[in-house]
């Protein structure tokens, strides 16, 4: 079941590559806008880099949340999934993982390149990538709740950002914090462990909450 839903969503993403690329380019553009707005002073950019990359990742991940369920809602396949004898939470987990593979992984892979633009040292680049690798699945999982709640609503796109962004704050703090800590030469393990803990907790609870939300939205 889990395999099938991931396989299906990846297949759909392959058929519609433009969706994946839009998210990635959005991420790149947002990150590239900052030097243009604050100036090319390298020291300043280096201190801001972890925050900028993380905020851009948050926004990019959020931007694609609308698609997580709405296409399936429009063509009726979501209805069919709700009627499946399989666990709906498992299904939502599959959809969130697929969302992460399609939107999160490209961000993780692109982050070191953007970090170089900001002249981040090698260690910091590695930590940035690891923190994104651990943190972006949490964004997809929490985002699934927001996407499920706003399904089919007018202005759903803006609404989902209102609902989801405040919940992203801890991830943002510890994600960017890990990179800053490594740049400052202090330990970053605690940050990464906490993001890992968030990941575990959201793996357990978010699919369940999102599944309940889907049932509410489709009733």
């Amino acid at each position: 079941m889990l395999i099938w839903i991931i396989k299906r969503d990846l297949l759909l993403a392959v058929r519609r590559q433009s969706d994946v690329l839009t998210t990635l380019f959005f991420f790149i553009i947002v990150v590239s806008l900052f030097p243009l707005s604050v100036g090319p002073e390298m020291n300043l950019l280096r201190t801001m880099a972890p925050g900028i990359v993380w905020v851009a990742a948050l926004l990019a991940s959020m931007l694609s949340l609308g698609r997580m369920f709405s296409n399936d809602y429009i063509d009726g396949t979501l209805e069919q999934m709700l009627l499946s004898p399989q666990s709906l939470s498992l299904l939502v987990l599959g959809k969130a993982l697929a969302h992460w593979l399609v939107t999160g992984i490209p961000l993780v892979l692109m982050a070191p390149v953007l970090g170089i633009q900001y002249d981040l040292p090698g260690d910091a680049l590695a930590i940035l990538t690891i923190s994104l690798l651990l943190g972006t699945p949490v964004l997809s999982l929490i985002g699934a709740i927001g996407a499920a709640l706003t399904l089919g609503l007018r202005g759903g796109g803006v609404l989902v950002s209102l609902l989801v962004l405040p919940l992203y704050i801890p991830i943002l703090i510890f994600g960017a914090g890990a990179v800053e800590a490594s740049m400052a030469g202090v330990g970053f393990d605690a940050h990464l462990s906490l993001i890992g803990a968030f990941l575990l907790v959201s793996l357990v609870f978010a699919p369940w909450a999102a599944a309940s939300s889907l049932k509410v939205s489709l009733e």
Partner: protein
Amino acid sequence: MAINWFKYSSPASFYSLAGKMIPFFTVIAIILLAAGLYVGFFVAPTDFQQGEAYRIIFIHVPAAWMSMFLYVVMAFWAGIGLAFNTRLSAMFASAIAPTGAMFTFIALWTGSLWGKPMWGTWWVWDARLTSELILLFLYIGFMSLQAAIDDPRRADKAGAIIALVGVVNIPIIYFSVQWWNTLHQGASVSVNQAPSMATTMLAGMLIMVFASWMYSIAVILKRTRIIILERESHTAWVAGLQKKGTVS
């Protein structure tokens, strides 16, 4: 005397009960508010460190407490509504949200007013202020979600889920912000070490807290009544009220 509480879980009987309770709470709220403000602004001594400006805490602290407390109460009632499918508890949750958001806003506003003379700036990224700001976002998210949904049953349930998700996240967010704040200690001023308070100050503050309570109850009951009327407008008992001309 045994009271059948479940009787009041039906909107119709709650409507009349709330109608009787509102004047009571309103009067108490006004009396306490007057007393609290009097104690706060005239009786309590001037603080030797902060001068007269500290008196804003008589509004700021109760507002901040209420803002947090009301969110928990709101999530509680929303959760009850979700679990037991009781309409009234969900209406109650929707009625609490605007009051909670208002207190959050007051807490932020007065906090900023307080910050100017204390820290020389309108806003500092202090852990408490930041958490309070995020709390405001959570309230706004809850209200916008409910406003965007036309079907009241779906609005109730969806609101309940986001309120519960929020309430689980509040400690995590608060803890994260605290950590973040200590990491960046240099940039901000800590307001955490409250000096030991004079008894009259404490008394004034407690009176204000109770006044806020009474005010919240009165306003929330009133708002619940309005929501009941809106939702039940097609029922016979509301039509009966309209005939009697008792719908204000």
